[in-house]
């Protein structure tokens, strides 16, 4: 019963090596508009249980800004709203940064492809790794004990500003957002988006919006937003 809409574009997320790989491939692929990317799956792949490697926090942050903006546009399209004249400068700046990082990443994506081909071509030959037999070679050159001190000093020095790159700032679960919305709809025929997301972080709010859009796409709810930036009424389609 799923409508054959562009959101169903088959994109094998498991085939991508990370957000940049995915975004770059989509952006350069002529037939796919970024707006038609299945955002739900992108975010799930990024932060969900199946993610092979955690995304770098900066990247995840920049990407969420982009995804939230795209979700907003999708919402407008679904609701038949006209486009907003100018996004706010912070959002624009974050997207400029993301674009710059994609451009910086691109050569390595392609170099990896080259390396992969090269690796296949060079997989055949085998080297004889038999150690030289016979008398032990002369001793290696003497080392200076001062080098030990030099090697030790940085280890007992205060570390540079701690990197938070190993932390995922917040685990956001789309399936959980979907479940929460569905259970709210089980109790009431219509739910206010503002009420649903009261007190949530912007990121969680964006995820909640994506959940609403996903249900709309499945035909489980209809969305109505009487005025731009106003509350969205999420109404179950009563199936």
């Amino acid at each position: 019963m799923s409508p054959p809409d562009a959101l169903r574009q088959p994109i094998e997320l498991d085939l991508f090596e990370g957000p940049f790989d995915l975004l770059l491939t989509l952006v350069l692929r002529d037939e796919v508009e970024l707006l038609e990317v299945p955002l739900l799956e992108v975010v799930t792949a990024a932060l969900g249980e199946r993610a092979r490697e955690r995304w770098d926090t900066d990247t995840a942050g920049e990407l969420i800004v982009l995804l939230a903006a795209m979700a907003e546009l999708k919402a407008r399209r679904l609701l038949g709203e006209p486009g907003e004249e100018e996004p706010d400068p912070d959002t624009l700046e974050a997207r400029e940064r993301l674009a710059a990082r994609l451009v910086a990443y691109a050569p390595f994506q392609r170099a990896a492809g080259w390396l992969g081909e090269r690796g296949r071509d060079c997989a055949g030959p085998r080297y004889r790794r038999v150690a030289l037999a016979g008398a032990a070679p002369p001793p290696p050159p003497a080392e200076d004990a001062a080098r030990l001190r030099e090697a030790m000093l940085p280890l007992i020095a205060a570390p540079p500003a701690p990197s938070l790159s190993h932390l995922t700032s917040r685990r956001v679960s789309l399936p959980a957002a979907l479940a929460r919305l569905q259970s709210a709809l089980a109790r009431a025929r219509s739910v206010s988006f503002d009420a649903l997301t009261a007190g949530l972080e912007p990121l969680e709010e964006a995820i909640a919006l994506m959940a609403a859009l996903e249900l709309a796409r499945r035909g489980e709810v209809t969305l109505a937003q009487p005025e731009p930036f106003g509350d969205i009424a999420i109404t179950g389609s009563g199936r």
Partner: protein
Amino acid sequence: MSELSRQIEALLFLSPEPLALVTLCEIVEESPGAVQRALTELEERHSPEAGLEVAEIAGGFALRTRADLAPVVDRLRDRPSEDRVSPAALETLAVVAYLEPISRPQISRLRGVSVDSTVVSLLDRGLLEEAGRPPDGGAMRYRTTRLFQERFGLRKAGDLPPLENFELTGPEAERVRRHLIEAGHLPEGEGPADDE
């Protein structure tokens, strides 16, 4: 077969790693020109109809078995099946090969994903090695190894196509920018999506 070629054949056979031209010259006490000619003679002797070949690889010359014999010679010892390099590993190797020495946080930032487990596995497999910390302290940096050069058929460190060859073209870069910047607001004069 010249005496010099015989000597070099014996040396390449015994050495567990590729021998640099200058090393060969020192050992056989001959000029680079003479050694080069002997190497050429040796290459002809080990022609495709033979089981071995002379390769210029990883900063030197090596004798190795020919690629088409891999299925047979691998029966000699069980080769680890994970000899395959995953796409994530390839991308990390590409970043390190071009930018070495480089730290894990730097690779992460460039690739957009955490690379901790990938780097550990590449260290284990001998394709990456530690390259010390920057003089002012900070994170350990990494570089590719001789084994990496052998595995990917590179003649020496940095024997890679110029990175510029892989950069986005002007129009492609513009396309990336346009897509990302414009996502989220409609261009002038465009209405809501045509309904499906």
